[in-house]
């Protein structure tokens, strides 16, 4: 079923800030939600929209009930999160809840959702794109979120690349750029769900379409560097890679490891990534020049590996990548510093919200990085008074060289900017 909750008010320039962030953590869902709602600015009245990222150990129906006990009619969008990041605190225990609350109709985005991803990721994306185009007349920034997990056993994911391609096809000519991510309940990609206004949906996606006075600036915070020479994908089907350089893909990967990539329980023992360099493969490259894909599982009999996305073509050159903590922390520091300067450089441009879509694989419990990468971003933005909300995601979506692409193992730091008329 597809849903549309549209804010028909035309945008206009405003000077007052009307997005408020709340964050709380705990096992008692109702108490955590109530704690968040108390933090929202009471003097501005009921919010016009709540964007919620909810730790995966909370029951989403209980979350909605708790919200409804205070705000009966406010649309609630969002989804599960492996963790939440805010200035008030962060974590990935699954007990965290973060909310961005809009209070002004003038700046509240239109909201569209679909749960058609169960049938087809591409078709779900296409329907969403068509709805957004037909109803939202703005050439505006769009945030796109979707449920990452199709099933835990067998391990199958919804494909961000197909959702994005479908969205752009549904929109047609002049499709706007997209920023967003795939939501999931925990670091192990166990489950996912989406809040679509008034209900909880699995296999769903939603888009927030902002008024035309808005635009987004995005920093992609990288972490990976290559640790192999180029290998050719010589046999694949969908997201499954059967052969690299003519040999079984799993053999090629495992001969570099001290232990099997897949444990006896069929689950991966570590995070590994294949990267594809954009542009000239033999020119000097930086982490920005790579699109990386996590290996999410493998077939022990066929000796194949399965990637997070199916977009690496047969015949393409790939490299094994590792997460380099120094690279990750340096990119986090630099990217956040760049974001902080936004709005100070251009007149009549005002940052309204910073949204941080942070790959769950970047958490310190996975990478061992010290300090925690999220704290580096938060510290760099400490002097900044722009509302900030982040969550730990499965896949990140951001423009790379002009086109929206699904990304793995990145942090996507997006700043929503309000521009005055005439800009």
């Amino acid at each position: 079923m597809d849903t549309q909750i549209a804010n028909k008010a035309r945008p206009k320039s405003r000077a007052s800030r009307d997005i408020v962030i709340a964050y709380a953590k705990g096992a008692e869902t109702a108490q955590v939600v109530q704690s968040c709602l108390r933090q929202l600015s009471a003097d501005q009245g009921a919010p016009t929209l709540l964007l919620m990222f909810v730790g995966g150990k909370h029951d989403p129906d209980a979350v909605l009930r708790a919200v409804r006990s205070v705000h009966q009619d406010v649309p609630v969008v969002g989804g599960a999160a492996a963790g939440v990041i805010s200035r008030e605190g962060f974590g990935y225990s699954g007990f965290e809840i973060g909310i961005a609350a809009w209070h002004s109709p003038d700046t509240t985005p239109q909201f569209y959702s679909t749960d058609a991803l169960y049938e087809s990721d591409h078709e779900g994306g296409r329907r969403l794109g068509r709805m957004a185009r037909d109803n939202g007349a703005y050439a505006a920034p769009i945030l796109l979120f979707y449920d990452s997990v199709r099933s835990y056993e067998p391990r199958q994911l919804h494909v961000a690349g197909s959702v994005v391609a479908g969205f752009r096809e549904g929109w047609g000519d002049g499709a706007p750029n997209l920023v967003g991510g795939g939501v999931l309940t925990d670091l192990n990609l166990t489950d996912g769900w989406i809040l679509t206004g008034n209900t909880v949906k699995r296999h769903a996606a939603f888009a927030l379409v902002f008024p035309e006075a808005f635009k987004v600036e995005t920093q992609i915070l990288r972490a990976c560097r290559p640790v192999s020479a180029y290998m050719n994908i010589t046999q694949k089907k969908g997201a499954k890679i059967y052969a690299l350089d003519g040999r079984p893909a799993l053999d090629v990967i495992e001969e570099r490891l001290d232990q099997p990539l897949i444990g006896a329980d069929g689950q991966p023992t570590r995070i590994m990534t294949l990267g594809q360099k954009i542009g000239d493969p033999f020119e000097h490259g930086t982490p920005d020049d790579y699109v990386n894909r996590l290996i999410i599982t493998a077939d022990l009999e066929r000796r194949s590996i399965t990637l997070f996305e199916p977009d690496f073509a047969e015949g393409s050159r790939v490299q094994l990548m590792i997460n380099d903590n120094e690279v990750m922390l340096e990119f986090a520091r630099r990217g956040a510093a760049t974001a902080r300067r936004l709005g100070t450089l251009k007149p009549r441009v005002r940052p309204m919200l910073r949204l941080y879509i942070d790959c769950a694989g970047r958490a310190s419990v996975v990478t061992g990085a010290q300090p925690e990468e999220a704290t580096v971003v938060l510290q760099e933005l400490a002097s900044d008074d722009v509302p900030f909300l982040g969550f730990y995601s499965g896949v990140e979506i951001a423009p790379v060289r002009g086109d929206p692409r699904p990304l793995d193992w990145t942090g996507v730091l997006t700043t929503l900017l309000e521009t005055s008329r005439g800009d």
Partner: protein
Amino acid sequence: MIDGGSSSSMVPREQRGSIEKELNYYRRMCSDLGRELQKTQDDRDRLLKETRRYQVRDMLDRALSNIAAQASDIRTLATRVLEAVVELTLWSRAIVLLADQANPRVLKLVSAVGLDQSRFPKLIELDAVPLSGYTVDDRFHPADAGKALRAFVDLLGLRSVMWTFDPETGIGILLATAAGPAIAAFRPHDEDLAQTALNGILDGVWRLRSQERAGRDSSSPVSGSWGGDGKPLIDPTTAGIQEGQITEALDSGQRIMEVLVIAQEDNSFLLFVSPSWGQGFRIVRKFRDAGDRVFKSFDRLLSFVRGALRYQGRVIIYPAEAPDVASMAGGDIDKRRSAKSLRSHLSIVGG
């Protein structure tokens, strides 16, 4: 093969073999360096994971100690312990179950985190309740716990579960995790953490029970710590009191009324306290009641009195040379010298 066909076709045939050889050399070197880098990172990751395991255990110990000290009822205690366990370990689900007194094979839900409690059965009946066990790689360990573990797996819908049970109290902790690349399935060393969690709950339960007893005791009238003849009164009902018992009573609102110290000839000190929930002085005993607690330093004793015992009043010291004073430690009050004589040796420290 060399990539980039057009440029390679410009290379004289006699040089191509040499260039390909050179290219393959660099490819191998690149791959070898990458492999070494990866192995170094793997070693570092292993060390970090090991370190993290110890850190988690330490953090859990500290967190559970605080939780146990502040618990007001068993459900709150269990919930807070489970929250701490899940937050630190990132396991998916944690549940505290309590064996029914009439039928110990029936387990009742006390608290759960990471799942919807309303969808979890209030009662679980097992053929037998194992002391401990876990699933590893779809096998049950120990084998005789298999039936119960299978029931837990079916109940929780996750293949990796761990169970630890205390038959004395009937309390058990059930843990489950959805294994994946970030958080692994349970391994034998995780039993340490499960036992630590259970100990945290048991510690809190004993404190709650002790508080209940202390609450009942406090309703009895308290007389002074000194007899009408000026002798310090030693509580005849007990051989002493342990620090844990004092802390529990203090947490429930009781207090230490007076403190008395015997300075021994070897410059060590014995400590007596007069608690509000008893009659007279009691000697402070070691943990698990393993003898009288002896302080080698008076500063440490005073720090203990002011800190752990939360007592800010005067501290009376009987010096070592006071006749018969050592017999106080033996609890035989009749052999003690008169309080008047003892008081001639008093020193007063602090308030």
